[in-house]
């Protein structure tokens, strides 16, 4: 697999490390149901057969964390953006 790093260009998957679901966002720690939200944040994951948004880090490159939209059935990559640049929901 090849991932296009926004900073370094297209590089082999062996330069990257995988973290997983990038749709989850760290909840408000002061919210009334913070404990429940944090459990979901940490442990609850969808398992879509198809397009999936996930975190990868260009670990052996520029070390940027990336948000990669990838079809988990075909490994086709639809988009890559730097995590720090993605538009807040």
């Amino acid at each position, binding site marked *: 697999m090849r991932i296009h790093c926004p900073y370094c260009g297209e590089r*082999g998957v062996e330069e990257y490390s995988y973290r997983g679901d*990038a749709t989850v966002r760290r909840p408000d720690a002061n919210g009334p149901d913070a404990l429940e939200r944090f459990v979901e944040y*940490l442990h609850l994951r969808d398992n879509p057969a198809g397009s999936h948004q996930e975190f990868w880090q260009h670990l052996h490159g520029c070390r940027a964390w990336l948000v990669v939209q990838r079809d988990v059935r075909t490994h086709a990559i639809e988009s890559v953006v730097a995590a720090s640049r993605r538009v807040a929901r």
Partner: protein
Amino acid sequence: MMTEKQPFRLATGGLVDRAAPLNFSFDGRAITGFAGDTLASALLANGVRLVGRSFKYHRPRGILSAGVEEPNALVEHRSGSRREPNSRATVLELYDGLVATSQNRWPSLRCDLLSVNSWVSSFIAAGFYYKTFMWPASFWERIYEPMIRRAAGLGRTAPAHDPDTYEKATAFCDVLVIGGGPAGIAAAVAAGRTGARVILCDEDFVLGGGLLGDKAEIDGESGVDWARTMAGELAAMPEVSVMGRTSVTGVYDGGVFGAVQRVSDHLPEPPVHQPRLRFWRIVARRSILAAGAIERPIAFGNNDRPGVMLAGSVRTYINRYGVAPGRRAVIFANNDGAAGTLDDLAAAGVGVAAVVDSRDGGSAAVSAAAARHGAVMHAGAMVTQAHGGHGLRSVEVLTSDRQRERISCDLLAMSGGWNPTIHLTSHLSGRPRWDEAAAAFLPGSLPPGMTVAGAATGNADLNACLASGAANGLAAAHDCGFSGRLPFWRGYGSGDGQSHRPVQPLWRVPGARGKAFIDFQSDVTTDDIDLSVREGFGAAEHVKRYTALGMATDQGKTSNVAALGVLAEIAGTDMASQGTTTFRPPYTPVAIGALAGHARGMDFHPRRLSPAHPFETEQGAVFVEAGAWLRAQYYPRPGETWLQSAEREVRTVRGGAGICDVSTLGKIDIQGPDARAFIERIYCNNFAGLQPGRARYGLMLREDGFVLDDGVTMCFSDTHFVMSTTTANAPVVMQHMEFHHQCVWPELDVQLTSVTEQWAQFSVAGPLSRELLRRVVDRQHDIANESFPFMSVAQVTVAGVTARLARVSFSGELAYEIAIPAQYGDSLLRELMRQGEAFGVCLYGTEALAIMRIEKGHVAGGELNGHTTAADLGLGKMMSAKKDYVGRILAQRPALRDPERPTLVGLLPLDHGSQVRAGAHLVASGQVANLENDEGYVTSSAYSPMLGRWIALGLLASGNNRTGEVVRACDPLRGTESLVEICSPQFYDPTGERLHG
């Protein structure tokens, strides 16, 4: 016609160099071949037909094919530490001095005592593993398994370390062409002429593929000459590289291909500085699969006898190698290729006794060829059985009018049609589909960017190969932004101009007598498939597992499709409904060495050395691996045991001064306006009040509330901090912080830089450490007790070089850590030791370090094990209630706050002389030592020189409330047990007075 020394070598013809004889040995016998031979062709030239024994039944086996699909002619190549088993003689390029040995026979190839397996074969038929060895279980290990291991199997691995080297490399191209036959050459030339970057990989050592074994013509020259001409043109193109002896073994996502280049397998030894194999990762925008086709055997009785060969391979031995694979041949085929086989055999002077065409009524083309050469024609007939033990003597033919006829021959050229070589098309889960017209599996959905050309499409007609290759090559170049004209070549194949009758599938001969093999390498017969179906394992994937079909090193190249054909016959259905087989990488076997490349032995991973490693080596350090680092473990003096060294080092530190290299600690430079805010969210304890010039111990949790790491963070200004981490966790902590910075709080303006390797760092510890440092740190810096108290940090200079000094302590003594840019590390340590001589200073290693931290009850790897909370470690009070930080919320889960959780305790053996070891389990006294009564375990232990006894740290249920209680420390693994008293983990100087000295 034949040369005397090589009785089966033709006087002329072929691509071998008769002026370049090569000497080699097979089973110790000295033989001669020619340059351009494979081991198989050289053996056949010398009349050697028996080359191995089969996997299970130890049946005599010869040479079936002339290519990578070979299931029978497997040998041990080379000897000693370079010995490689299961080498296919058919692709092993001959060189002077080659040594090959037959496999799986004892005591010798001709007299193999285990061939008795053949006679008891009914007991070791398909599924015998599952049925025979069900019970008793103990018999399996002691009797059955050793017995099977001895009886079954193929070659032996090398007995010693592989002396060769292996490499990995990456290449990029626009168009990758896989296969160097007419279609592949056409594709590469068409794409290359546009200026595109082209890589052509061909597994053979001569470009030409099928042209080499045929008598084809292209544009007025022989196919071989045309291939040579094109190879010259390709070689002259600067953007094209032709990689011979290179097998593309796998297709991966994103246009990535794996390929093995056999750099030195055709040489007596790899040349200096050359690897044996080079594993390529080829990244291609477009690819063209032009891998040709593999001929199918036919299952009839004893179809594995040496002398039974694939017809196309017979032609290859004649045309390419100038070798007659026999003296008197019979042809058995279900397709018109038999005509060309007949022509080639006749031209080589091999008598053809009969042609057996399985198709009802035969075909005009084949009958005409038989008439031309005076061979008996049997149309609508079958070969039912082969006779002869170590070599074919005759075949039995069942004629169309049901007569049985025996024809003597020493060569049977068989052809059951061709399977397009489409393996690579299904590596990304493409499913081949059965094509009724071609009577073959053709590529289904293709990997992105791949097209197929030539015989791999199911059409082996020479002009079709040239045309599809050229068209695909040009189209691929177009896709990459290049343009050019479509080349055109006119070819004349051996069957051209004749009427054609299509192939009529024939998987197994009805009424066959004797074992009819489908999978030669796994010894699977048609009867085994019948049996498998009868016993309920009828689905293709079940048959495969029940019989081991297709699971040998050839991965069923000659058997998988035939097995599906037999299954379809048994079920009375068509091929399409039998499904298909799945091909997985690698296409051909890849030596593990090629996959490992340089990553083996000491080069398995990078070895990280402290900047002061040279000096420590001079001082006689014994090193220990700490992750990728080598750290000084202790510095033995003559006659000392490791424990005596560590004990001396501890006493020296606590009594005066010692120096420990702590360069391996992770160091993360944190800068920016939000540096402090970020650190506040990463550590669980408070950093809001940390002033410039001060350091603080920090504890970091994972988001799930468990402790991740600890370390000291120094504040140099409101926007500049330097964090230290444990050696082992440095990469993990860095990644953890980068994640939270970039993904969770990108709004924080902060930069993180790992500077672990940029700084050498030494702990200078002991009551005399300040006096020692005064002599090393430049005079203008005031490090007096009052002006530079515990937890102070400062930028200082040492001989004018910028350094950092921190008054921190892991040993519990008055201590400092001094850091200096890495290039000065070795010099600084030498200087510290020179100046320390007056104070009796010593170097101390990780052993002494560990003893002193256990004496002080500081946690380290044994306790920071990913399962402990801050409270478990007695650090619960550090968790700030005033701020949010990673791990705060989930640390509040009830199970993490359970007062009965195991917590950190000190442990003292009641018997002063007895030792407690890490790993021993803690059980309440009077309780049985079992899992149910397990209350915790010993995490670290050491002999304390200061206390004169063994001490330990452990995690014990409700440990906080059990001081003074005596429990059992049981170590069933080592068979020891002792009674230990629970105490505070601070064994030595519990009030911490020495820190402030």
